């Protein structure tokens, strides 16, 4: 029981990690089913079809398809990436990297995990209610998501699950912010923090500010569905009433910061890891930090670019367009700093490094395609096409997966005391990276050609018929992507049982967690370390005298 209801941040981090990985698998299988339907519309799904869709003889019905893409998005964003990156690695890394014994509020931390568990239970249960799980898309736009568009209890349970997910996230945010503000080891000034910690800290600020907004939207949607209020249903003149567009405002007021909530930890992790494996200090550390802060500030005022086609005032639209384009300034700085870090580094192409470089590539393409969508005129055409799907998958799926895998391969030794196999790691990386790009760049192409998202059978439309071969190839690449994850699953569990025992500092880096044995003892630090330098002192001349190329953050030179 002590291991299940633990208040130790390392145990809670692992719990979040396992929960997220399990749902990553579920969401991934859903993606495979979606790809099957798009490549072979209306044909029975092989192997698992009769098991999953017994009523339709193994064929994915339009209703089931709608549920699939709704739940795929919901699960991946709220129940896979959020728990893995923020819950899992956030919990595990933040106290260790700042030199603290635990989170500021360990019991709140435990509660955060169990509320998340309740949210996942609610979401899972919603598959088994009459009329099935939610079908209004992961954005749950009103009026599709109100009792008019979705009469079944599945959508109601969806709103409750997202609400609980939000409660858990805010609990986590309170903890992370307090921990970073209050529990940094002596000498760990703000500009000596590893960039990973900056990522989690800034993400938590956005979480604390904007997750409550979607919680409010979910609560109002819940009231609309259960108590008959009409916030998101256009009212009659006499009754007065709500506005479906109001839902979109509330959703995207949260939804756009959410994009950065997810990517900020990834940026932080990659900025650190690129430096560690290029064996030189992170290029422009301070610029990176200010760029991250700049993105956080700008992310609050750009959400309208999701709503260019709702008939908003052109003046407002243009402001949102301008602000959105300005975001490319800090993100470009970030990107240039990554390249600067790699430039003439003594690169060690380990598995975590491969995934980081992969992220730099996919994030580059994903970010650049965002500029097309930020432009009002281009967006009129591209809105709701596969171009949007390709764009956000390159960032939310490709880049975040890359970061999650990089983090897993990097911190696995510290978490479990064993090394993962490098050979299998590389075997995992290459098919993943190549297939991923075929899938999502292919989606950009068919979106550019005019294919809308969320169509049950695009080949039913004459003007999209010629895209069927494209869809077949995208699906094939998607299956390769799905199958290559089995290498990761094998590597993960095999290493857990029989991996090579990990030394304290297998990657030879200087941040505080690597001064501890792998895995670290219950309260981390016997004695709280005193920090004397920044996190990226690699290739340091003083270190060479000691026969190595890095200096620990708490290493005193005599």
């Amino acid at each position, binding site marked *: 029981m002590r291991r299940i209801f633990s208040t130790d941040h390392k145990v809670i981090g692992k719990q979040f990690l396992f929960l997220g990985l399990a749902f990553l698998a579920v969401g991934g299988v859903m993606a495979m089913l979606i790809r099957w339907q798009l490549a072979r519309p209306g044909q029975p799904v092989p192997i698992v079809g009769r098991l999953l869709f017994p009523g339709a003889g193994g064929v994915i019905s339009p209703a089931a398809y709608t549920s699939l893409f709704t739940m795929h998005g919901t699960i991946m964003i709220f129940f896979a990436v959020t728990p893995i990156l923020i819950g899992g690695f956030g919990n595990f890394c933040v106290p260790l990297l700042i030199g603290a014994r635990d989170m500021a509020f360990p019991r709140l931390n435990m509660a955060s995990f169990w509320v998340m568990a309740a949210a996942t239970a609610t979401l899972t249960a919603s598959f088994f209610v009459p009329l099935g799980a939610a079908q209004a898309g992961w954005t749950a736009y009103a009026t599709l998501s109100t009792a008019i568009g979705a009469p079944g209890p599945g959508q109601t349970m969806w709103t409750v699950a997202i609400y609980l997910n939000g409660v858990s996230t805010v609990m986590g945010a309170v903890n992370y*912010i*307090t921990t970073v503000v209050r529990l940094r080891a002596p000498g760990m000034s703000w500009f000596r923090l590893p960039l990973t910690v900056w990522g989690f800290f800034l993400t938590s600020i956005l979480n604390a500010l904007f997750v409550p907004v979607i919680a409010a939207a979910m609560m109002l949607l819940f009231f609309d569905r259960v108590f008959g*209020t009409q916030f998101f249903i256009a009212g009659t003149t*006499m*009754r*007065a009433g709500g506005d479906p567009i109001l839902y979109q405002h509330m959703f995207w007021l949260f939804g756009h910061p959410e994009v950065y909530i997810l990517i900020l930890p990834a940026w932080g992790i990659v900025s650190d890891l690129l430096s560690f494996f290029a064996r030189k200090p992170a290029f422009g550390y301070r610029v990176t930090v200010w760029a991250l802060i700049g993105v956080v500030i700008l992310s609050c005022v750009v959400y309208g670019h999701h709503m260019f086609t709702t008939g908003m005032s052109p003046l407002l639209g243009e402001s949102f367009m301008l602000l959105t384009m300005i975001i490319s300034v800090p993100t470009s700085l970030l990107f240039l700093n990554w390249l600067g870090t790699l430039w003439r580094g003594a690169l060690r192409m380990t598995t975590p490094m491969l995934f980081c470089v992969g992220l730099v590539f996919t994030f580059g393409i994903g970010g650049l395609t965002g500029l097309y969508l930020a432009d009002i005129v281009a967006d009129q055409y591209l809105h709701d096409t596969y171009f949007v799907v390709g764009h956000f998958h390159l960032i939310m799926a490709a880049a975040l997966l890359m970061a999650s895998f990089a983090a897993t391969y990097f911190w696995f030794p510290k978490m479990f005391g064993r090394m993962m196999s490098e050979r299998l790691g590389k075997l995992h990386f290459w098919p993943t990276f190549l297939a991923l790009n075929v899938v999502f760049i292919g989606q950009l192409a068919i979106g550019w050609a005019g294919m809308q998202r969320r169509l049950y059978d695009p080949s039913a439309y004459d003007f999209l018929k010629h895209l069927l071969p494209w869809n077949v190839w995208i699906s094939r690449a998607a299956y390769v992507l799905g199958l290559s994850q089995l290498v990761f699953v094998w590597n993960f569990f095999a290493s857990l049982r029989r991996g090579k025992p990990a030394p304290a500092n297998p990657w030879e880096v200087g941040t505080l967690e690597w001064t501890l044995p792998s895995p670290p003892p219950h309260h981390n630090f016997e004695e709280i370390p005193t920090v004397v330098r920044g996190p990226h002192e690699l290739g340091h001349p003083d270190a060479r005298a000691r026969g190595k190329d890095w200096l620990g953050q708490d290493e005193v030179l005599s």
Partner: protein
Amino acid sequence: MNGEAARHLNGAVGMAVFIGACAMLFAALLFAYAVVRSQAPAWPPPGTPPFPRGAAAANGLLLIAAGFALRRARIRGPAWLAMGLGLAAVFLLMQASLWGRLVAGHLGPGTGALGDVFFALSAFHALHVLGGLVAISVLLRRRVPGETRLRRLRLATIYMDFVAVVWLIIYVAVCLV
């Protein structure tokens, strides 16, 4: 800095973040209210029965009084703590009876924009008061050292003051403006 003072600061930072998050939640709800109201032909919408302002205001006084009781409890001990708990509980009961009255008077949820707005805001607010109630009752039951107790009591007081202020804002926004 000794352990207790450090924990006090931790609590203060955590509570500040938490109240910031709660404030965003109510700000979002008030934003929804503003949009609904700006789109109505008139406010309150034609045909809405008169709203019982007096009852809503009286309930608000109960919450403010609960905050004062918690302040007294810092010096005078658990009797005033129980008093604060009682006042907050009475607030919830009075809110429940107000909802009953509103439903009977065709001002409940689903009857019109004003009924919807008041119900959504006040129900959400009541849930937050309930949270404070739980925190205070835990404080009343647990046998903890005096300093720790005082620290937790301070945090609970800040939170209860916050929900009282939120009620004041809701009251002004929905009933007076």
